[in-house]
């Protein structure tokens, strides 16, 4: 007996069991109705867990950060240029962490944006199907490699190379973290941008070819502008991912919250600060401990805003060509 036949037998048996015995029918149907309701309620409760998670994240952050802001004014937090909560002379200005974070994130985009976009154009417009089917999964492997592995690679492989080029490069620096992070988010940019490009209707391309355009002109002047909302959304998502990335910067970018724009000296990002505090033995409830929530809520707000902008762009400009 085939698998399907077995299943349908089981299924028929279940139905006939209730229907064919008149003494049991109404009773069984009533019990089945209750059972159905219970299942539905259980599934609803399970679904509620994702909502509860969001509520828990927001309320935990707000609660602990509010304790922090009882001691430190928001004005100092946003404008002071020194971040030294772990030293005896304490300053609580998040700017050095923010500049450190954006230095690495924009450095990474500097790599991932051109490489990702060109890869996407190649995969969508140039590559034969067979080549595409091989290259695409290989490129996606880059996104699946654990970030601590990238950190190892940045610190022990990329950083020595940069140091051999110039003496002013320190062992821990933003540049090596940014280069490796750019490679990590490349598949995100290329894969999402390629999806957007492939969604552009063939007729647009054919129209351009009929007018005598070359492949380059079709790619850059027809397909890219038509897919621009998806491409921009993928960039924003990638920036958000780079800002929230932790292990690469913790391993390779250093632990020095300096207010600088030089990519060759040690810096600290918001995420690596949180890890630094977690690794130390900071007593819970102290002001040092509360700083991770103040930093955490800043990080959460920035990434959430970026993700929502990206979703908005996709929603707002979707289906223009349908």
């Amino acid at each position, binding site marked *: 007996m085939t698998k399907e036949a077995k*299943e349908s037998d089981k*299924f*028929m048996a*279940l139905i006939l069991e209730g229907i064919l015995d008149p003494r049991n029918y109404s009773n069984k149907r009533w019990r089945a109705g209750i*059972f*159905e309701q219970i*299942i539905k309620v*259980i*599934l*609803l409760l*399970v*679904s509620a*867990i994702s*909502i509860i*998670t*969001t509520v828990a*994240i927001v309320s*935990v952050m707000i609660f*602990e950060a509010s304790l922090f802001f009882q001691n430190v004014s928001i004005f100092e937090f946003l404008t002071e240029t020194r971040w030294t909560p772990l030293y005896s002379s304490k300053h609580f200005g998040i700017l050095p962490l923010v500049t450190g974070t954006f230095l690495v994130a924009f450095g990474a985009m500097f790599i991932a944006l*051109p*490489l990702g976009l*060109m890869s996407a154009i*190649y*995969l969508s417009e*140039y590559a034969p199907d067979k080549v595409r089917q091989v*290259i695409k999964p*290989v490129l996606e492997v*880059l996104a*699946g*490699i*654990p*970030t*601590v*592995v*990238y*950190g*190892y*690679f940045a*610190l*022990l*492989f990329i950083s020595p190379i940069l140091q051999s080029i110039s003496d002013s490069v320190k062992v821990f620096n933003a540049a090596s973290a940014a280069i490796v992070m750019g490679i990590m988010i490349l598949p995100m940019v*290329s894969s999402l941008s390629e999806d957007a490009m492939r969604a552009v209707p063939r007729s647009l391309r054919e129209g351009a070819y009929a007018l005598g355009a070359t*492949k*380059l002109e079709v790619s850059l002047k027809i397909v890219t502008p038509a897919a621009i909302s998806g491409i921009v959304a993928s960039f924003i998502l990638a920036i958000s991912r780079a800002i*929230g*990335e*932790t*292990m690469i910067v*913790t*391993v390779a970018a250093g632990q020095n919250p300096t207010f600088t724009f030089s990519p060759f000296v040690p810096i600290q990002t918001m995420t690596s600060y*949180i*890890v630094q505090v*977690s*690794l130390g033995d900071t007593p819970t409830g102290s002001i040092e401990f509360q700083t*991770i929530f103040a930093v*955490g809520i800043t990080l*959460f707000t920035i990434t959430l805003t970026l*993700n*929502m902008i990206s*979703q908005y762009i996709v929603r707002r400009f979707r289906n223009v060509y349908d």
Partner: protein
Amino acid sequence: MQYLEKEKYQQRLAQRQRRGKIFEIMCIISITIGIGMLALLLWYVADQGLHKLDWQFLTSFPSRFPERAGIFGALLGTLYVIGTGGLIAFVLGVGTAIYLQEYANDNRLSRILQVNIANLAGVPSIVYGILGLEIFVRFAGLGRSVLAGSLTIALLILPIVIIASQEALKAVPSSIREGGFALGASKWQVVSILVIPQAFASILTGVILAVSRAIGETAPLIVMGALTFVPFAPDGFMSPFTVLPIQIFNWVSRPQHGFHEIAAAGIVVLLITLILLNSVAIYLRHKFSKNLEG
């Protein structure tokens, strides 16, 4: 006059085509850089770590001396935390997906759920660590235990599991559901007897991919309070623990070259685990697509 313009046109055309050729080569170079970096990374890790990888390394606990150190405790920790966390996320994720895909009407509640899940998927993993620390470690009083770590990991991969399971359920043709209803089956009978068996392989694929992401996660477990030096095997859900990527991180951050080498050996073990898991996922997907055809 006409002749001259034609010549000009030919020149322009050649130039445009040359430009196109150059652009194509630049595109190929871009892709080669990405793939080349992957190859370079794998080669470097294998070159540094492969000779340190032996039975003693797999069965020893960490040590102050790199030549005696091993990853046994970290491997067991990963197995405990990811196994339990994956199981919890599987149950919760599939449940949520079934509710959203099979039960919920297109009302406000289900739209809020959907947007919420998309946003949760974009929350940086370190934020889940902060959540785990506050809710499971401190508030629920679980301490820095395997259980607290598993729950943190479960919440972290939950959105991925939900989205993958929803896609799997969506792929089941509605004619199958309608056939069930036409025979008088109830909603749950249709879902449990007809829909889930059809979608199961591809749900499982999604869960395995989510789990393989969780195996590499370091930051949330550090923030939640997993230890970095664990010279014992975890002996239950309330035991302290470490995981493989945290052990690797610990070795990378030490200055001695010996520790960097065993970090590379640890990375090789981590990557092999991921390759194995992904092969299972690819095998399942392949088998599933065959089933649909046959």
